[in-house]
């Protein structure tokens, strides 16, 4: 098959393993960063540069930085994650969530054979304007529903943090 895919897929999987196995929080976050960048490289390979850039700018450039911010705020250098990693209930719950995710992916990829057998890419594929059309015309309702979901999460976060509202 495709060498490019295998190289970056291997990097992503290994970095993902490192993310959950690392004893320190910050190297673990760096492992996650590597996963994001490897995935972005795969998107580039799939002729979706915009998606790759979003992956780097939003996941690696904003979300992971927030995670790292919390890590730096709450932990001291040299503090180990072993106590959390050894916790059996965390492990069990993680496994359950992982299995659910795999199940979701399996359901999601049921129709993927049509895409694989497709020859070439349509005109303008991955263009910012095509992206905009998809988001704000074809799938406007889905987009808005997801943004409401994010708003709910935001309000929930504030509610959980504030003692008195």
């Amino acid at each position, binding site marked *: 098959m495709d060498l490019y895919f295998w190289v970056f897929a291997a990097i992503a999987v290994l970095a993902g393993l490192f993310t959950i196995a690392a004893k320190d929080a*910050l190297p673990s976050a*760096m492992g996650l960063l590597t996963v994001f960048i490897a995935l972005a490289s795969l998107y580039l390979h799939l002729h979706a540069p*915009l998606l790759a850039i979003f992956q780097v700018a939003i996941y690696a450039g*904003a979300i992971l*930085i927030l995670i790292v911010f919390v890590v730096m705020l709450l932990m001291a*250098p040299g503090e180990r994650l072993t106590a959390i990693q050894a916790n059996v209930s965390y492990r069990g719950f993680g496994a359950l969530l992982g299995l659910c995710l795999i199940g979701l992916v399996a359901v999601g990829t049921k129709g993927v054979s049509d895409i694989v057998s497709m020859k070439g890419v349509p005109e303008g594929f991955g263009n910012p304007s095509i992206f905009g059309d998809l988001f704000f015309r074809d799938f406007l309702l889905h987009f808005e529903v997801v943004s409401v979901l994010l708003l709910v999460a935001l309000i929930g976060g504030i509610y959980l943090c504030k003692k008195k509202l």
Partner: protein
Amino acid sequence: MDDWLIAIIKVVGIWVWVLLIAVVMTWVERRGAGLIQDRPGPNRAGPWGLFQPLADGIKLFTKEEIIPTKARKILYILGPLLFSLPAFSAYAVVPFGDKIILGGKEIILQVSDVNIGFLFILAIGSMAVYGVILGGWGSTNKYSILGGLRSTAQMVSYEVPLGLALLAIVFVYGTFSLRDISLAQQGTFLGFLPNWGIFKQPLGFILFIVAAYAEANRVPFDLPEAESEIVSGYHTEYGSMRLGLYLFGEYVNLVTISGVIVALYFGSWHMPYIDLGAYLGPISWGIVSFCIFFLKVSFFLWMFVWVRWTLPRFRYDQVMGLGWKGLIPLALFNIFITALFIQLTV
């Protein structure tokens, strides 16, 4: 084969050129400080102290590389590398001139004209913060950690107004490509102004330049280093060429940011009112456009120095307040106004 050769020449040429500007900038910074503080500045090595950067470079390269015993070795070594790599690669999508025609072949003066243009710069720019974080965390020094912590919060906060200011630019020009935006800035606007981005996006320009100063960790936003509060922040424990990479990466970032400012807001390689491209031959126009572009870039580089030695540093809560309560609402307002104008005029 020819295409490969041209691409390699462009990549290596612009890389060397940007590094050269960064080297000269370290000299300009110190001479500029001298000028503003009414003292000579470095003036011993060569004429006007011009060889000072060379002497500094030799000093940094030949110093002993010390790793503090308590430092986390891998993180400590990775820090400066992760900081300078994005800095060195971000210039790839910024143009440095119009085009040159050699032997019937049209060569655009830009390493890569991708249709996602400055999104690439945003993404690459946000990677630089990991170098600061790793340096701060890997040093196992409380000042370094504080520096890294401040850097993360600042980067995340100021990326939002930066992105929103750029979004308004996309509204105006309808493209992400820096070359297309540059080309659209020819001629005049409203009959008497040069057709530059700053006249179409005055508020956007102010927002962009403020956020860019914060992203580059320059005074008045140099909280991550803040010598008077946290010694030198994330690079307190660094010496020799590792420190050199941090300091040098910062100047390379300044060149890239100035290039983006010129390409987006100051007409790129266009002279106001005169279309020189119509009068000059293809080769001489290529060279002249390159010169015009970097003349404008050098003005903004000087402005970085000028601001650094003129303004005092913000307090930390002021930085966060300005970012979230000042710039972001203004940037949203700017987008709203821009969208309204486009809706009414197009």
